[in-house]
């Protein structure tokens, strides 16, 4: 089966029922998406399918074939970080950071469909992501900073 991941086409030889997370981590060596619960409860495995935030741990890989898959590894353009990544660094919006890729991907999906989300919409987009270190206050600050930056870019 062919997969389009971070702009590159990969040929993988796996059962269609295999989870997308397992294929990304095991077959493609993209370990930035994390196994946190395997049940879609925690969001640590979040990736984008055609721009939509998706729990890759409960997504059969055959249902992702034919869609553009984006993982945390595919966000930065060379050394140019995505504005959400930059904002996470500036606000230290993490501690152990195990959940960080998932939060960043959920926010990137939100900004893709709504470049100027308000606080309620940001929280709504992140309810499926758990940060046990409790850095939510910083994640909200980083999300607002990224929204402002993206809004300015959009207005240029």
């Amino acid at each position: 089966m062919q997969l389009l991941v971070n702009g590159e086409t990969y040929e993988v030889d796996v059962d269609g029922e295999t989870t997308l997370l397992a294929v990304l981590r095991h077959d493609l060596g993209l370990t930035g998406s994390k196994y946190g619960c395997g049940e879609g409860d925690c969001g640590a495995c979040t990736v984008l399918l055609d721009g939509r935030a998706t729990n890759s741990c409960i997504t059969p890989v055959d249902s992702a074939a034919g869609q553009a898959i984006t993982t945390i590894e595919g966000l930065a353009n060379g050394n140019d970080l995505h504005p959400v990544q930059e904002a996470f660094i500036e606000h230290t919006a993490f501690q152990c950071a195990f959940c960080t890729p998932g939060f960043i991907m959920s926010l990137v999906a939100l900004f893709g469909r709504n470049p100027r989300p308000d606080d309620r919409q940001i929280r709504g987009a992140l309810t499926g992501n758990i940060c046990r270190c409790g850095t939510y206050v910083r994640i909200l600050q980083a999300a607002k900073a990224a929204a402002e930056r993206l809004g300015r870019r959009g207005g240029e």
Partner: protein
Amino acid sequence: MTITSDLHEDAVLVVTGPPQWAGELELPEPAGPEATLLTMNRQGDTVAFSGKVEYGQSIRSGFTLAIADELDVPLASVQLILGDTDLVPYDRATLGSQSTMTVGIQLRRAAATARRALIALAAERWAVDATSLSTSEGHIFPAGEPSQRVSYADLLQGQNLRLLIPEEMTIKDAEDFVFMGKNLPRIDALARVTGQAKYSQDIVVDGMLHGKVLRPPSYGASPQQIDTAGSERVPGFVMVVRDGDFVGVLCEREDASEQALDAIRVRWRENLDLPSDSDFPGILKETAGEMVILREEGSLAEEFAKADHVLDGSYFIPYIANAPMEPSAAVASWEDGKLTVWSGDRSPFGVRDQLARDLDMREDQVRVIAPEIGGSFGTKGTVSVAYEAALLSKAAGRPVRVVHSRAEEFMWGTVRPATLIEIRSGFQADGKIVAWECTAYHTGDLAIRGQRGADTPYNTPTVRIAVADCKSPLKSGSYRSLGCAGNHFAREVHIDEIAASLHMDPVEFRLMNLTHPRLRRVLSQTADRFDWDSRRTESSSGIGVAIGYDAGSYVAECVELVVQRKVVRVQRVVAGIDCGMVVNPEGVRNQVEGSIIMGMGTALREEVEFDAGRLLNPVFSRYRVPRINDAPQIEVVLAGDPTTPSTGAGEPGIVPIAAAIDNAVYNTTEARIRDLPIVPRLP
């Protein structure tokens, strides 16, 4: 996975000393034998070594800033090696908010020792007095003449310095810091936002297999019959490993190992006589062991008889799951009789020593490396996943990775002890406390777990503080501010009850009964920032306060919340912390914010439910940890004096929060909830 090879090979300056130092304070454990703490090579690059591990608390940044400041070198020239038993000095475990206090300060002294030696080399070269020289960014120059500078690298040519940290070695004052005390990005930030940070589940070794271990459906269950024929039909199956009741499957892929595990047919004998959570809290008193008296002064009976009022309160805190986002995982690899294990454990040396005992090996035949750790909060201090990987790897003759499932993490990790606390207080009509009797029952093997924070900081002429351990139906383990958070919940709610019964303001009441200067200061500053007096009279929301102490630090928290039917929405928290001199202000704020969010979970909804040996809610959808919608506005007030030594910051913030929330709920609903969690018990 490549292992950094000999880091000492090109070292031309080596500083040794015991890995810990606490000055005039008492060390919580022996300082340890002398070891290499810091080296510099000919290029002037620094490598420092510590047995501590990074599980999110930002110790890598804190140590790096401290070393760069004491050495006067650029941050990028300092490399820190953490938690690798072949490379770093022995360390028992990363716990108790001790790292900055004892190891961070010793690394500063090691760096200061190196800097002094470099200055001495320059003084000799220029035939001037060492006190006339200054340092900056890896260079030395005569004070006021930075253009005549010489680099550390130049000075180190042809040198081979071996230095022992002198007993009298001094470190810099806060006003001389370049990095410490500033708001700087974490030095490991880039890897963390790009998915490059490697946790145990991300470690890959050539030829690695994936293992899963058979678990009983309930505690105390034993297998009567095991049939693994189905596993063998799973594509990619390699082997079954059996050793008594231990059964593991090995496959070429992780997902295959899950299928192979599911395909094992087992007839279990379960023990249905085990306790259930409905047996709480009675079971705690019934199974209590010996009572340890922590403090006993004066005659309680006399004071209770004389007091204007006597108040009794009984407080219960259920089991709490640590539930770090990263489930436990380990990779084991054997080569020429040496076992290397990557495991995100907070005690790499503890794992090494235990593995050596269990596998009948010498300690130097086992190397344990802690990669990035996805949260601990007190768990991941157990050896099981590393042992499982080692055993399976030995049997297979190939490297093996074992990653626990979320359900395994919930069921076979440890839980915060359940606690019952009974308090009887005697007080006068004017608000003066005259008698305080506190008896605490904490589950677990050692009452010492419940002693932390059990004593009252409030003035009272007569007092008795007693702590007992009691039988634990589930495996009690450590947790953020172990024992201390529960003890504070009971005490600070009880204090609020006294103030309410006398119609006194809770802040004023606390100040009236406190003389401890640091607690008074942190409470006053926090209440001021919160605007306590006007919020208390003007706000239609619930307003609550609590204070506390832990890990040498002092904290106060004020909370504003609303209660709507069965929902508690915490709107604003102001938290003051006095942890002495602050190395990394953003790090301290981040830790206090995280402690508050975590403590909100224990206050409002978290509770491990179990029935006859079965865990009833081992999933995030039923074990309700705080989510982003629960997050309030949080303001952190750094109330410490920069001239007092640094004390713990990772834990103290959790100590008052549950009581502050409970007191605020009472303030708005007049319902006094003495058993946690609050939400299911709202009227």
